[in-house]
């Protein structure tokens, strides 16, 4: 009893939206206040790590080509790496500031994987359009955690990352299995079902 692929996108959108709200609140109040309670400090890296874990069943059960599988596997690995690196830094197990670069790496790899594994053009169908849009959003959005890793005290980069995740969430919610985009739908895409 597997959910349709679009439902999986919507569930991940929900996870990213919660992650975005946490990061936005953290950017507003500052890391010191956000980390005042241990459970809250661990919340967003754990959420990111959990989303990475949940990407594995997506890779196993929902991919229908090698490139699709590799792309989802790359997302799973880099999301888990970024979440684990932030957890390690919080816990004090990791010390080097270089671990902060795992988060921009995760976004950049995710963006590149999205663009590489989408074989169709922008206006083939809504899913293809959103894959392109998501890919470029993640690639450009990687600048925010990159700058946050270089200048951790400037909150604007944290807010930028949070808003990037909000946009990613909106794109994921807009995904449908077969649906037109701005009136365009290739006859090769199939029949829109709803």
């Amino acid at each position: 009893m597997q959910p349709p692929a679009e439902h999986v996108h919507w569930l991940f959108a929900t996870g990213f939206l919660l992650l975005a709200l946490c990061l936005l609140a953290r950017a507003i109040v500052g890391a010191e206040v956000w980390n005042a309670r241990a459970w809250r400090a661990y919340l967003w890296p754990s959420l990111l790590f959990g989303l990475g874990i949940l990407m594995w069943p997506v890779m196993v059960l929902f991919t229908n080509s090698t490139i699709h599988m590799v792309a989802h596997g790359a997302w799973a690995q880099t999301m888990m790496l970024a979440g684990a690196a932030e957890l390690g830094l919080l816990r004090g197990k990791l010390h080097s500031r270089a671990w902060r670069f795992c988060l921009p790496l995760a976004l950049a790899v995710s963006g590149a994987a999205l663009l590489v594994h989408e074989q169709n053009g922008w206006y083939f169908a809504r899913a293809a359009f959103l894959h392109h849009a998501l890919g470029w959003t993640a690639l450009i959005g990687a600048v925010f955690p990159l700058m946050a890793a270089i200048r951790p005290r400037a909150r604007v980069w944290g807010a930028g990352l949070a808003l990037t995740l909000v946009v990613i969430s909106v794109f994921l919610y807009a995904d449908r299995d077969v649906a037109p985009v701005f009136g365009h739908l290739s006859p090769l895409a199939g029949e829109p079902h709803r």
Partner: protein
Amino acid sequence: MSTQLISEQALARSRSARARLVGVLGPLTMLGGVAWGFLQPYRLTVLHPHGQGFWWLLVEPPLLVIGVGIAFALLIAPGLIEDLEDATPR
């Protein structure tokens, strides 16, 4: 009035504005979900449940957005605002 007092008052005002901002994040998210439900009611299968499968009844995007807003407003925002106010010099 000493410059230290003035700067502490400015800091307190800034923290109060940030507390308000954190306080509206959840309700704004909920409002976004409600507005989406009105704009695209066909994405709410609970409004026309007959013949819908399990996943179509469980995963309804506008309700998920409202759920995220509620979770943030009830579970995260109150403690965060409390900690922000505790950090404010009185």
